């Protein structure tokens, strides 16, 4: 066992650093450092994704034939770590990481030919239509209905928590195409043009004041039947595939470490009265850093297992739980570091569009909204309570 990089790995690390130095603009960097949401605004996320695509790194996780990079797990880890360290934008994953793999796995040749290049190039901006009001973490109870009418489906219902629906021109959605004894069996996976007549978008402001999510209403929205992915009634299976595709590939420690370093920088500044001299702050910094160390080691263990063709096992299901908890601890630490500056509420959104100097140091602006929005980490994508239910089943056989 060893944690050091070989020569090829070091060369790749340098290549990544060079790429970032050449492509990360000051505007992107500022937007990212003032981003209080999970994902970047399109004005930062799209150009970054295009730069990656131009380099051939637009979708590292895809099979090489479709544009993937064929990186080893160690390369993926180096890439993610360098990106986090540099503070590159975080484009939404709905295209590359979510609908892309489903189309690759289950789409028709026509769907692959048409959509995959448009995902890589950001010609299409995707959003995800899964959750509904009332369904919460219990997706199988979804009610949005698609009724076959000749060569079309007619969709009625509503989706909620739709990230960046207001930026997207395409949505992939789970809809009910029939009623079956097992609710899951009546669900299909469809692709919806967001400019279709009958779609209305209602913004939902987050607790931190950001416009990131929406409610989307469908009123007799018609889509071509060719926008069904795979078989009718198999949507649940594809949705789960997507989750498994992502599972075990999480590399969150680098981003957490970056967030912690930002908090440490605040703590060392005069703007916070050098909060770091409060031993409670200094020790909590170490607690968080050690938690991140542990998470990183777990990630590396999983990567090593993958690299050796082994199944990392249930360990990977623990990663989401701990990542969200550590994220909240770090954002909370940052809030405690900036003290009463956290009382300041900035109405401008996104924050990087602010022009006049605020009443607190500008680089502190995102701290409180980030913390507030970050409470969602233990809710979306399955609450921590549901994660624990799942882990107790998977890991403990309970």
């Amino acid at each position, binding site marked *: 066992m060893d944690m050091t990089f070989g020569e090829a790995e070091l060369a790749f690390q340098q290549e990544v650093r060079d790429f970032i130095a050449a492509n990360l603009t000051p505007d992107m960097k500022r937007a990212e450092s003032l981003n209080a949401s999970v994902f970047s605004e399109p004005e930062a996320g799209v150009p970054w994704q295009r730069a990656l695509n131009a380099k051939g790194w637009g979708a590292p996780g895809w099979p090489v034939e479709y544009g993937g990079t064929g990186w080893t797990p160690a390369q993926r880890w180096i890439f993610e770590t360098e990106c986090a360290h540099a503070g590159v934008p975080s484009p939404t994953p709905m295209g590359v990481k979510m609908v892309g793999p489903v189309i690759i796995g289950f789409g028709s040749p026509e769907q692959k030919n048409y959509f995959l290049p448009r995902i890589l190039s950001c010609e299409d901006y995707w959003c995800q239509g899964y959750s509904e009001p009332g369904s919460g973490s219990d997706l199988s109870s979804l009610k949005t209905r698609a009724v076959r009418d000749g060569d079309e489906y007619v969709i009625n219902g509503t989706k909620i928590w739709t990230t960046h629906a207001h930026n997207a021109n395409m949505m992939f959605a789970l809809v009910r195409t029939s009623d079956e004894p097992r609710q899951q069996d009546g669900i299909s996976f469809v692709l919806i043009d967001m400019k279709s007549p009958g779609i209305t978008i209602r913004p939902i402001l*987050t607790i931190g004041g950001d416009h990131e999510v929406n409610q989307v209403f469908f009123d007799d929205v018609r889509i071509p039947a060719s926008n069904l992915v795979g078989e009718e009634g198999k949507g649940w299976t594809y949705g789960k595939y997507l989750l498994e595709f992502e599972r075990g590939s999480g590399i969150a420690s680098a981003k957490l470490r970056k967030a912690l370093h930002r908090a440490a920088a605040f703590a060392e500044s005069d703007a916070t009265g050098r909060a770091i001299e409060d031993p409670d702050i200094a020790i909590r910094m170490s607690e968080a850093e050690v938690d991140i160390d542990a998470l990183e080691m777990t990630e590396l263990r999983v990567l090593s297992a993958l690299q050796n063709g082994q199944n990392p096992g249930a360990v990977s299901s623990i990663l989401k739980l701990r990542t969200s908890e550590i994220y909240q601890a770090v954002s909370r630490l940052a809030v405690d570091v900036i003290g009463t500056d956290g009382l300041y509420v900035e109405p401008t959104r996104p924050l990087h569009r602010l022009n006049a100097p605020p009443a607190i140091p500008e680089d502190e602006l995102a701290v409180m909204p980030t913390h507030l929005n970050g*409470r969602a980490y233990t809710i979306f994508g399955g609450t921590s309570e549901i994660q624990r239910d799942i882990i107790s089943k998977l890991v403990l056989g309970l």
Partner: protein
Amino acid sequence: MDLTPSDEQRLLRESADRFIHETYTAKLREHNAKEPFGFSEGIWKQFAELGWLALPLPEQHGGIGGGAIEVGILMEAFGRGLVSEPYLSTVVLGAGLVAEHGRDDQKAALLPSVAEGTLRLAFAHAERAARADLARVDTTARQDGDAYVLDGAKVAVLDGAAADQLIVSARLANNGSGSLRLFLVPRDAAGLTLADYPRLGGGRACNLTLQSVRVAAEAMLGGDTDATPAVEAVVDRALAAMSAEAVGMMQTLTDKTLDYTKVRKQFGRPLAANQVIRHRLTDMSVQVDEARSMALRAALKADADAAERGRAASGAKAKIGKGARFVAEQSVQLHGGMGVTDELDVGAYFKRLLAFETLFGGSTHHYRRHAALSGRPV
């Protein structure tokens, strides 16, 4: 020894609860957020008419002579309603400092107006470099003939823009060098700049800079003596009042969360059918109960000697801070997706409780102060 409320205290609680319940709706809060000072002048007038502004002020100066218990009863109701009127800044802190440290002529001039609702005060004390350390004041007051010249910068001045007069703390720069003084400074004084902003969880606050702000010698609050003990006493009482306010917020959040989890269904049954969620709600209600005990203790000890008063106030702030965080975070968590939007009240309570934790220092700061006041080396 008797900890049951008197009849008067019961009546006060009932009328405060009724007022908040009937008047202080989400709609009013929305309205208030758009007001220039972040609250409603009309409500403030009603507070005056109800005698609430006079409540803790001395009887000889237009007050009712109530104590920390009575203030706590009001503040708990204010917490339930997320009241944004400047009660803490004007009555508890501002008038509190005048009553505690002011000269008789200053009390006579200022307190009746506060009681009537025609004068608002704010306390400009905290500074960026000080964090929660009350004793750290870098703003200076230089005596210049019959006047003092103030220079420095203050942060997190609650409701400063709404105040007619700011009570500014400063250290003497020449005569009596280093000793702490308080000065009454009109909000529109020359050299005073306010950066006013909406405050997390409701109301407003400002940062301010003082550049050669000139005030008459009589503007010094009280005689020419160190103001530190007065500041500590009044802040301790503010901590007791804020603790009661936090109890009101924690109780309301717990009630709301209880209601929500009983009704909201997932996987075919109410959320509250989950044992994990029932236990969470139990722990929340235990935290509320302990918070209630500590807020009461801080109020009962508000006039005790400095160490006992400080231990009770810091103990309450520290313990309620921890409990408030738990209750607020779990309320958001158990409300699921809706909890992290601005569409439910839950988020507003969450933010106001965060503001509570931050103001005058967090839990660790106050445990440390408690330890120091208990003679432990920290």
